[in-house]
């Protein structure tokens, strides 16, 4: 038992094989209220973060896009409009509940035809090598058990010259903002989770998992080590969120 490999689940250490299941429970629990909570927690700013992500993706009509951890399909909807009928967007999520909510929501908005929902694990993507022009993973990487493995697999399925964009919570750049953000994350966020989604624990996990996620420079280095080139990041909202971009050589 002593040699059993562990990983973090928020502030807890759990056996590696358990993390995916625990994360899945969180997202099963929040799936139906995910969008409402996103708007509430970020004050709607998550739409601006995603807008900037789309811009940096450089997506064009006819391209193949993979939206990993696509959840309720925010990015997929926008990519679907950009790539048009000649392109394709794969909405991938490991969590069936999130994928179902995303797929239904897209169909309700009339977005279909060039969108394919796929239940997939970011560490073992079920696609051939060199398939996609662009891969995005928004607020998903911190939930992946082995991030290095996931980054390497993303590199594998990207075409040469393709882009990976990682939008994720990160480390605020000012001490004052960090303190305010801590108070917000650990006091207000679980309270909002309790009131709106009747699930304080999932939102406590959200705050903890953000603190355990690699900071800007570390994630950039991880991307370099996975094989990406021209890696860079853009801090947004004072570093609360960072957008990393790397290119497959």
């Amino acid at each position: 038992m002593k040699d059993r490999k562990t990983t973090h689940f928020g502030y807890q250490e759990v056996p590696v094989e358990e993390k995916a299941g625990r994360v899945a429970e969180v997202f099963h629990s929040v799936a139906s209220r995910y969008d409402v909570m996103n708007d509430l927690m970020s004050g709607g700013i998550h739409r601006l973060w995603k807008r900037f992500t789309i811009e940096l993706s450089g997506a064009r009509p006819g391209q193949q896009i993979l939206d990993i951890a696509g959840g309720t399909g925010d990015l997929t909807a926008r990519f679907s409009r950009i790539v048009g009928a000649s392109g394709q967007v794969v909405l991938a999520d490991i969590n069936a509940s999130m994928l179902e909510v995303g797929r239904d929501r897209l169909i309700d908005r009339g977005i279909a035809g060039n969108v394919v929902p796929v239940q997939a694990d970011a560490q073992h993507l079920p696609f051939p090598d060199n398939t996609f022009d662009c891969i995005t993973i928004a607020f998903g990487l911190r939930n992946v058990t082995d991030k290095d493995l996931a980054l390497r697999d993303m590199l594998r399925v990207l075409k040469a010259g393709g882009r990976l964009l990682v939008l994720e919570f990160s480390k605020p750049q000012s001490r004052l903002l960090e303190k305010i953000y801590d108070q917000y994350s650990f006091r207000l966020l679980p309270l909002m989770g309790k009131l709106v989604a009747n699930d304080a624990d999932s939102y406590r996990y959200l705050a903890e998992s953000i603190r355990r996620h690699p900071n800007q420079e570390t994630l950039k280095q991880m991307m370099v080590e996975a094989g990406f080139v021209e890696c860079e990041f853009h801090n947004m909202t004072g570093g609360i969120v960072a957008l990393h971009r790397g290119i497959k050589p």
Partner: protein
Amino acid sequence: MSDPTFRAGFDLALETAINTALQYDPATRARLQPLDGRTLALDLTAPQIQCYLCLAGDRVYVRQQEDGGVTTRIGGSAISLVRLLKDPDATPAALGVSISGSSTLLAELQEILRDLDIDWEAPLAQLVGDIPAHTIGTVLRGASSWLSANLNRAPAAAAETISEEWQLTPPQAQFEAFVEDLAELSLATERLEARVHLLQAQFARREAE
């Protein structure tokens, strides 16, 4: 605006404003469709902002990054660019506006913007009803045309008041007559000077003989 969040917010607000306005002018939307896929880059110098207006179908997208080709790039102050797009007599050189790439897109956009006719009553009617919206629209149109007529007349009226009423400057006719007299005096002086030089030369020759 170094944080991309603020810039994304600005772009979103501008994009929403443009497309909401276009929603109430179907003719302009129809004229934008043939320009699908073209991109206009704006390099504003005052305020210093760079943005891209991408035309897609009958919508306009505002972006801060554009990896694809730019059809036309124009640079200058925001006021100059607005004047260039709206004023048929304005020329880029006179306004200090630089243009690179295809000038066709710019010419087409100028034409579209000059004919822009947004039906503001439609969104207002959705809020307050048809009759109040029409009444408000009529009052606003009247006020707008009064303001526009007065603004056009303002420079001439101000000049008249300063010279005729306050007599701070001479009236234009008097000033023009004065300028003519001055020019005539100047010519007469030059002629006199030439005559004096001629006489001086004649006297000098006689003294030498």
